């Protein structure tokens, strides 16, 4: 049977190793970017729209600033935002979705209806309000993104928990008096874990891209360096219509894709570690 076919790999598998390798490389670049001096990517080092040349591998932007430096400096912001938002959202979704799935009815109801209210909140208004009254610092942006992003996965998680809960051996354990939280901790990882992986990957992606989208709508802060910001300036400068897309548009786009792809690959590998059946098959 094809779905039980045994792969001959262990620990993370080839996909996982590739994923980890790429991610480590990107994180290293981001760390290097954090260590760069403040002026990196902000200093005007060339004429505007300079094509790549020695000492300026990716050319310069519309103000004549080094695009490679911007890519490296932006990695810190984008990755940091992606990780923080993804971790917060995934945790919130897991805890709230899990609790709503197994908790007493009143808890389930209040959590899910709270999620409904948050779902409905017009997010753009939240952004405008936050930017006007709280500022656009890194922490605030991350907090709002996490706040907006958790309700959908929490609902999905709850649906997953409900299905998992009705599995034969769990019903038996429950009938025998095992506490719900213990069961969730014991069995939840492989039943719910796989559902959390798309949440993490998806949220990380949304967090990176949101910078660009908000700027596009005229509500963001296109002066703070990030991959998303670069994408915004690519668009306003009409880079797609010129040769510059190769060194201006492609690198940040590829960086985002690589990051999300590496997360997805790691996710798949982790999924196989979590799922006992898949793992058994792997032995």
């Amino acid at each position: 049977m094809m779905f039980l076919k045994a792969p001959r790999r262990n620990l993370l598998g080839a996909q996982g190793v590739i994923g980890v390798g790429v991610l480590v490389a990107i994180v290293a670049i981001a760390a290097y970017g954090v260590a760069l001096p403040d002026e990196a990517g902000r200093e005007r080092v060339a004429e505007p729209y300079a094509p790549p040349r020695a000492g300026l591998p990716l050319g310069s932007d519309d103000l004549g600033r080094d695009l490679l430096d911007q890519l490296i400096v932006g990695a810190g912001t984008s990755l940091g935002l992606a990780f923080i938002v993804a971790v917060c959202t995934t945790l919130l979704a897991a805890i709230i979705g899990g609790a709503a799935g197994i908790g007493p009815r009143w808890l389930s109801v209040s959590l899910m209806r709270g999620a409904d209210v948050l779902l409905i909140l017009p997010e753009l208004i939240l952004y405008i309000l936050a930017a006007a009254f709280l500022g656009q610092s890194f922490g605030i942006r991350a907090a709002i993104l996490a706040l907006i992003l958790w309700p959908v996965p929490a609902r999905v998680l709850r649906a997953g928990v409900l299905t998992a809960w009705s599995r034969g051996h769990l019903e038996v354990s429950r009938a025998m008096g095992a506490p719900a939280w213990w069961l969730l901790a014991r069995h939840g990882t492989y039943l719910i874990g796989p559902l959390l992986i798309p949440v993490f990957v998806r949220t990380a992606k949304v967090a990176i891209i949101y910078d660009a989208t908000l700027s596009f709508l005229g509500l963001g802060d296109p002066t703070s360096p990030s991959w998303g910001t670069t994408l915004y300036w690519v668009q306003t400068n009409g880079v797609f219509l010129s040769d510059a897309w190769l060194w201006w548009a492609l690198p940040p786009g590829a960086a985002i894709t690589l990051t999300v792809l590496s997360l997805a690959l790691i996710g798949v590998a982790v999924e196989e570690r979590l799922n006992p059946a898949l793992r058994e098959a792997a032995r």
Partner: protein
Amino acid sequence: MTAVQAVRRGYPRYIAGRLAEYLSVLLVALTLNFALPRALPGGPLKLFGSPEALARLTADERAQIATQYGFGRPLPQQFLDYLTGVFTLDLGTSLSDGRPVTQALADALPWTLLLVGTSTAVTAVLGVTLGVAGALRRRRGKGSGLLGAAVVADSVPQFWLGMLLIVLFGVKLQLLPTYGVAGPEGVTVGGVLQHLVLPVTTLTVTGMGYLFLYTRSSLLTVLTSEPVQHAHARGVPYGRLVRRHALRPALLPVHTILMLEIGFLAAGAIVVETVFAYPGLGRLTFDAITARDYPLMQGAFLVLTVMVVLMNALADATYPLLDPRARTGDRR
């Protein structure tokens, strides 16, 4: 008594309990929909003239405009009017163009349903099908290829992809129209479909990865669960195994997402509607926000609220039908 009979007996009570809950969500949401627009910096005064002209108005003249158009009256009174309006379906008049809010919404709704409805349908079919394929073939090159393609497509910002498509299919190849819903000849079926291709493609490509990943993960978990494994051990043919035993429980979380997506139809697609100058609800809402047009914002949010609550309720109500066992979780 079979499980199905039990489900049918308990159903009315189950529904009644839920109704009360959703009504309270609705009330909280209505209050927020009233309060949040008014918390935004600035106000609708700017709709009544250029800033240079408004600056010359005396305090009395300002007050007169604010009272005449409603946004200057005491907040409790405005709130009361708003609530009455919601229940009598009289949503007031847009401050920006004097149209009744219901008419503004009714004008935009069909376009949004066409655009977002089409793309949601296409996304759902493609995302779920590919997700199932990805799960069944996870060990094969094709499965990994699918995963890669889904992730790559998913990590492109919508406005970017939209502009790319415009440049490619509009400017370079001159194949498809770049904006709006109809050409100069007026609204025709062919014209509307033509204008739909690029925005729907944008929405579909950027929305598919999400469903793909969920479907894939969910199905993989179910495929390796005991009941399915037992059935497999009993010698149930593989195709039937997937169709009969795995697919339905696996699609439960996917079902949740789809219901939410349908609810969010009413939010429109702000970015794509902006890029393609599509006259839908997303753009209407965005314009209402930037114009600080309180009645129009309230109206747009009301539609969204009702749709999302309705679809959530529907999602909850249909769990037991999709998977009768799931209901035990709600009983305790």
